[in-house]
């Protein structure tokens, strides 16, 4: 019932936020802080690694959407790493699969940025 957040650079222009745990109304403010902090520091290409996220709710989706809106103002992008079928289903149901790039691996997400 917690979330672990770690951030690292993939290259000069791109950072990866790795999330481990569950993203819900209690934990999503922490995710929002991490995303906002990165954007405030001038990083507009963000890969969010959801591979170890077992649960995401509408507040978590809202944080991802909010981040995407902000980076787009700078010509940036938010790509997601996700191969959990239950999580992918949530992106399908909400139609968010059409606005995010969703990839199985970090390599695929990085390739799509080039």
């Amino acid at each position, binding site marked *: *019932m917690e979330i672990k957040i770690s951030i690292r650079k993939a290259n000069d222009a791109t950072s990866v936020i790795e999330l481990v745990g*569950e993203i*819900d*109304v*209690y934990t999503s403010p922490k995710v929002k802080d991490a995303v906002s902090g990165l954007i405030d520091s001038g990083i507009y290409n963000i890969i969010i690694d959801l591979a170890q996220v077992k*649960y995401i*709710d*509408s*507040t978590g*989706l*809202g944080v991802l959407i909010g981040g995407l809106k902000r980076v787009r103002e700078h010509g940036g992008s938010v790509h997601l790493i996700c191969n959990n079928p*239950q999580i992918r289903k*949530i992106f399908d*149901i*909400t139609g968010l699969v059409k606005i995010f790039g969703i990839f199985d691996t970090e390599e695929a997400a990085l390739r799509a940025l080039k």
Partner: protein
Amino acid sequence: MTGSDSIELAIPRRAEYVAVARLSVAAIAGRLRFSIEDVEDVKLAVAEACTGAIARGSQLGGRIELLFEGGDEALHVRVVAFAPLSDLQELRGDHGQGPRIGALGSYLIRALMDEVRYEKGSHGALDLIMSKRQQFV
């Protein structure tokens, strides 16, 4: 579960307790032999209902009361005092003016459950009632 087999859960109307509701309903749906996918659906729908009750119901008292009932091959969940009566039109999708609260959450509840409705409850507030039918494969 039959009529007398209902389960009640009351938690504080606060974000940190939504996980308790989520895990409890997962156990209940598991007990009813819902498939793993359906358990996940019900879990998310109940969590979204609690999240909505927190956003909408700050003036409705400090607790969220959930009633679970199984039977006729479905799980029925009532969220007591989900929202004030004045939210009814907006919840029914008749937007009116002003921003919509938690539209994504309401959307997910409707997408994940088989039936969703609102009813005037005993406390002069709206109850949210939702049902998930069991799939027999």
